[in-house]
């Protein structure tokens, strides 16, 4: 079959959404299904940067208990905070 994503960037991102915390596994998986492909390349890069954060810090950001000083990150987090899981 033809592969629309020869360097597998979506697969890499999908795998890096595998976390140590179940809370993040669930939210990030739902986000990937729902809207990741609609993000601009710059937003995709911002998302990839967020995945580099420690699990506990990322969960604080995603659950709204803390905020990022970076505007692009904060805008993307705003979307992540609205991700429904049920």
């Amino acid at each position, binding site marked *: 079959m033809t592969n629309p994503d020869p360097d597998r960037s979506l697969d890499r991102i*999908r795998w*890096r959404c595998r976390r140590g915390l179940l809370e993040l596994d669930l939210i990030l998986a739902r986000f990937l299904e729902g809207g990741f492909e609609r993000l601009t390349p710059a937003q995709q890069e911002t998302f990839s940067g967020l995945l580099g954060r420690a699990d506990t810090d990322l969960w604080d950001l995603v659950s709204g208990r803390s905020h990022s000083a970076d505007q692009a990150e904060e805008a993307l987090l705003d979307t992540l905070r609205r991700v429904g899981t*049920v």
Partner: protein
Amino acid sequence: MALPTRKFDAVIVGAGGAGMRASLQLAEAGLKVAVLSKVFPTRSHTVAAQGGIGAALGNMGEDSWLWHMYDTIKGSDYLGDQDAIEFLCRMAPQAVIELEHFGMPFDRNEDGTVYQRPFGGHSQNFGERPVQRSCCAADRTGHAMLHTLYQRNVRANTLFFVEWMALDLIRDASGQVLGVTAMEMETGEVWIFHARATLFATGGAGRIYSASTNAFINTGDGLGMAARAGIPLEDMEFWQFHPTGVAGAGVLITEGVRGEGGYLLNKDGERFMERYAPTMKDLASRDVVSRAMATEIKEGRGAGKEADHILLKLDHLGLDVIEKRLPGIREIAKKFANVDPVKDPIPVVPTCHYQMGGVPTNYHGEVVAPANGNPNTVVPGFYAAGECACASVHGANRLGTNSLTDLLVFGRASGESVIRFLKENPGHKDLPVDAGDYSMQRIARLDGQTGGESVFEVGAEMRRTMQAHCGVFRFPDMLQSGVQKIKAVAERAKRTEIKDKSKTFNTARVEALELDNLIEVAVATLVSADARQESRGAHDRADFAKRDDVNWLKHTLWYRDGSRLDYKPVNLKPMTAQTFEPKVRSY
């Protein structure tokens, strides 16, 4: 087919707390050690541990390793091996102090000593009164431990292979373990990691259940590999369930909610815990509450369209208490249950949390299996530590805080055992000529499969079967039919098919290989649970309501070959202390 090969003194599979504590011991001894991990080390599931590390430091009042030992044995419902438990509790204070010296940011007392929290099940003077024994770093103990150990490993030149998945154990004709095969996700290439010693620290397999608090990475890879290589799995019928996981998601709602006055309701709005535990009600121990919930659901009093969950009511506490005393609970309920607990109850179910069984080891972290009439014959070159191993210190039920203690003590001990073994056994033994063939056959089967089964669907059927037939409370008819069902699912798992055959970062292939590991654990669990005709710790049977020490004070060993069971005695003889004789367990 000859595979590319790398040589190391030791290879460790898994980079959570146990794997990184072991690798640190080896790297600091100057050995060449490789650590394989599916994800970046600090994203291992150890990060989810909040409770703390149990150790009798005595910083908050008098304490003793012997009291910790008593609590652990009693908690295990007397299935724990008393030599291993003595070792765990005696070594725990040293393990904590070492970690402190590595830079772990523990909470402190005013005098600078490590602060210790109270935690359920831990007592002074053999059950007399509660003791503060849990060493923590706020509610981020696991996170702090992973970061501390990772940084220390980098300093010691541990070689991390990140986004690598181990596939199979390599054993020679004598049974000695000579390394693993592993797949690099980036390239899809399979390599042989030829090692003088191999250590598994792959964590638990809690993803065999639909309702699980475990992260998605917890697929029991070490257990699957060990089982395929002919090593038995010990005590797999024992899984700890947490009473309040969010229905459908698994995310934990802390016991603190009930501590603050929240309570459970069935579909009729009845506060049913009053019937099961008239005194303690909703604050009875985890197994009592979970069993009551499972009974309500089984008897048709579950809430919701499918009558499949229980309601946790806390709106009567009011917004202030919920926001101030239970931080984060409202966000979790809104996100994962779509309810605002200030107005509506949270749907919850007893949820799989921790695997007490695993790859059998002694307290040196050496893997043991029956041979030549000795049930605990060492498998040369093979070690295991942490949740994937069964030493057995948790027996039939783990005491809170002992999981992190286990990682540190047995991570270190297994590292020390490897160092001794390598001194006595210099050089690499030759690999068998067919090393790697088995893994390549498995991958070739997967790639060549046509008209096969969907990995997702087979996985979902496995999780449904485990949840319905082998959950917190076990019924004989359900166990029997469950064994047949899970064996049928295992047959389907032999025919999984992936549509995408490409090599580079093929996550579909990884997930298919993970399912191969999960299914071994699922079959082991159901077959072991069906056979054990008693109730002990986390194994609760409707038809055998009591513990039976005459017939069942023994460890289960499940072999993949023919799904055969064997048993071995519990070691009731501690290293130096006197035996704690089995007694009725009451709190």
